[in-house]
């Protein structure tokens, strides 16, 4: 008996089976992916929506061991940026995060929020964050990162935030072992080091120029 491809039975012998599980097949077994919402600048009027009276207190006023991190943001002409906003996020002195996303469990350090939001309104054009010096955090590869603070900078003229990290100039030993710093040149590392002051540290951000801060793609 010859096979006739045009002799189609009224009822197929087996029900239709999608070719599921084939990567790139276009069937719904591929993970659902929605396009992310594009970012936009905070613009010049961010103070309306993003001012928090308690913004600078990553560690509450009076918390034992509290330090101030102060600094300014400079543009490519060397001028102070008078309308930037910085946000910081960091571990507590024991290296824990007050976040349920930490697979080791959320930490709870008295008076510590770990997050600050401040603006550089001119005058004086300087921000100040009251916090605790972070401890060392596992790097996920068997080592420890040096104490660091993740920083987002937002401003008119930046269509997306830019991200950098604060490290501490007086942590030379830990810094030498840090997996992120190890990937940078000495000049690049220098842009990330906060320098000791009377009541904490100073950390300036240079958006452009010879001393342009190292920014990270996250």
């Amino acid at each position, binding site marked *: 008996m010859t096979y006739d491809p045009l002799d189609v039975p009224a009822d197929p012998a087996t029900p239709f089976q999608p070719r599921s599980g084939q990567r790139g097949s276009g069937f719904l077994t591929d993970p659902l992916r929605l396009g992310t919402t*594009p970012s936009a600048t905070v613009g010049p009027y961010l103070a309306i929506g993003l001012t928090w009276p308690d913004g600078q207190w990553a560690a509450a006023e009076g918390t034992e061991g509290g330090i101030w991190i102060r600094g300014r943001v400079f543009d490519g002409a060397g001028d102070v940026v008078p309308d930037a906003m910085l946000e910081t996020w960091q571990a507590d002195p024991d290296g824990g995060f007050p976040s349920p996303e930490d697979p080791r469990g959320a930490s709870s350090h008295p008076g510590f929020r770990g997050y600050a939001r401040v603006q550089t309104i001119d005058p004086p054009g300087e921000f100040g964050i009251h916090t605790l010096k972070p401890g060392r955090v596992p790097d996920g590869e*068997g080592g420890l990162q040096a104490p660091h603070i993740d920083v987002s900078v937002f401003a008119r*003229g930046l269509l997306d935030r830019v991200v950098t990290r604060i490290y501490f100039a007086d942590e030379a030993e830990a810094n030498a072992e840090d997996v992120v710093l190890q990937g940078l040149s000495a000049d690049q590392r220098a842009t990330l080091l906060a320098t000791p002051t009377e009541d904490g540290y100073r950390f300036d951000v240079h958006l452009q120029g010879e001393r342009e801060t190292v920014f990270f*793609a996250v």
Partner: protein
Amino acid sequence: MTGTTSGSRLQLPRYLREDASLRTPVGFPDYKSTGLRAPLRTPVDLPHRLTEITGPVLGEDRVVQQDTDLTWRNGGEAVGQRILVHGRVLDSDGRPVPDALVEVWQANAAGRYRHVVDNWPAPLDPHFDGLGRVVTDSLGRYEFLTIKPGAYPWGNHHNAWRPAHIHFSLFGRAFTQRLVTQMYFPDDPLFGQDPIYNAIPAAARHRAISRFDLERTQDNWALAFQWDIVLRGTDQTPFETDDDGDVA
């Protein structure tokens, strides 16, 4: 969402990055202010570790009742077209983001911001400050009542006008998910000449535009616009490495 500790190795989620062809660049020459501000060097890749995959818990205690209704301030009602703005906050896996803080700010109906820097000759409204806040519910939904913001001139180039927009600031669960953006209204005739809108790659611009929502429009009260916001999601199939770094 969270990984497990295995020895000294941590299994961490990895947040996916939108393709560069669909992301707003940090700088855009037609938007003049980016010239001296947008960094010029290529950013250094930062693999996601504990600091990047965690984030602050900021919730209900930052929001008061009046924050979800911008149309009533100082004992009176704001002038303008009353609108309900609502939608969902999702991650790119399509999962709702509950308990997320959403902060919004905007110009009044005449296109004037209540800010010392904004001094163009349009009237301020004593009953409108332009600030709103809301926390998403268990299904990632948000909504607030406001008035439709006006367009305004901004001096970027001759006869430059910003299309009507509402500024949005969002926290997800992780540092990587942080988003500040602007919501536009459908069919705005000012889109074509606006460099902030046009800085968004063409294929992603529709994601910044809300949809007129007749169903949620309230009879004799308010028009409605719907806008879903998508934050970065995680790689759903993270592979675990053993002590030799091999994929287990």
